């Protein structure tokens, strides 16, 4: 993946292209997605939540991650290039669209869209300022043929209050039980709405994003235009898991 430093990530691209390159690197197929909405991302978070059930001494875990990705693909894919049909027609004309595209390719395309990761600080010796900076490496759309362009972007937040920290940690740990407290299945509850709300409350400024060709500035515009997945991924870094070793049930029993 190529990393872009100077160019801005265009949030309002009409289409995002994700290339899938064959193993021998001779063929490139492309998946084109419309702009992801907050609803798309909310559904993705809701569907990927896992289920836990006790079975005798073992825990069975059902992870909804793959289903969530395939659902997001179905919602946001607009077209593909490089996939051949027997009669030469557009794969979208098939009744099976988009399931007529290999599921591992669909998954890989969504993985590429969602593989936002924490970037290194540009200067690790820089004194911390008034705000908390969260730099991210964000893959966005195809740059050079066969390569998805990765942008370095920065989200600058105000320091969360204790109440906001508890709100976030509570949302990340929230679960429900379906079918009774003993035999029932534990389901995690999506923290997405809380994460987005906290992002909107805490964001001060961003770097590296553009809308309509202009750098994205101003609280109102950031809240309105920012990619919902980037909101959730960036704000999470403000609320790290506290040191679990610091207190434990075992210590409490002693």
């Amino acid at each position, binding site marked *: 993946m190529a990393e872009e430093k100077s160019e801005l990530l265009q949030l309002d691209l009409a289409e995002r292209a994700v290339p899938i390159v064959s193993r021998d690197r001779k063929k490139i197929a492309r998946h084109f997605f419309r702009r992801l909405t907050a609803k798309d991302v909310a559904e993705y978070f809701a569907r990927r939540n896992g289920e836990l059930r006790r079975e005798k001494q073992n825990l069975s875990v059902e992870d909804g991650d793959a289903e969530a990705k395939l659902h997001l693909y179905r919602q946001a894919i607009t077209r593909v290039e490089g996939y051949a049909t027997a009669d030469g027609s557009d794969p979208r004309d098939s009744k099976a669209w988009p399931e007529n595209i290999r599921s591992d390719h669909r998954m890989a395309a969504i993985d590429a869209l969602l593989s936002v990761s924490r970037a290194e600080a540009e200067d690790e010796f820089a004194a911390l300022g008034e705000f908390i900076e969260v730099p991210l490496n964000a893959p966005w759309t195809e740059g050079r043929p066969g390569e998805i362009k990765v942008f370095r972007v920065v989200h600058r937040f105000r320091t969360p209050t204790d109440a906001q920290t*508890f709100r976030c940690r509570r949302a990340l*740990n929230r*679960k429900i039980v379906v079918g009774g*407290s003993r035999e029932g299945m*534990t*389901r995690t509850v999506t923290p997405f709405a809380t994460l987005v709300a906290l992002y909107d409350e805490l964001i001060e400024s961003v770097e590296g994003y553009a809308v309509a060709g202009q750098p994205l500035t101003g609280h109102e515009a950031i809240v309105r235009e920012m990619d919902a997945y980037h909101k959730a991924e960036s704000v999470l870094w403000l609320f790290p898991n506290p040191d679990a070793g*610091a207190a434990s049930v075992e210590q409490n029993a002693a």
Partner: protein
Amino acid sequence: METIEIAADEAGIRQAAVELLEEAMDAPERERIRQHAAMAANAERMLAELPQRRTLSPGYYDWVRYLIEEVEFRVDRGLAASATLDAKDVLGLRALHKARAEFQEKHPACRGCGKNLPDASARYCRDCEHARWEAEMRARR
């Protein structure tokens, strides 16, 4: 189908916390059985017979851990003001408090070493009972 919000189920949280405390109390015994099982021919059966304390859906135990490791830890150490907690955190802390009281009642401390006793009617743990017996024997000699 019945849906339960774990954070609002005070009785469930209390029970899960008691079971976790009992599990922690059992830990040395469980470890002893595990070590024996490692060398035993009937290892599977021995491991299957390890004492099981948990009776609730897994999410209850996760929530108790969250309450202890995140909420209670931060408040007790002054890292966060208790005024910032919401009603569910307060309910959870209350359930933990009740669970500890219930655990102490069911498993009072050994009068010798202070370890929690599996049986509420006992006064000393096995080790202390043995040490007392040896001391008594020595005194008689």
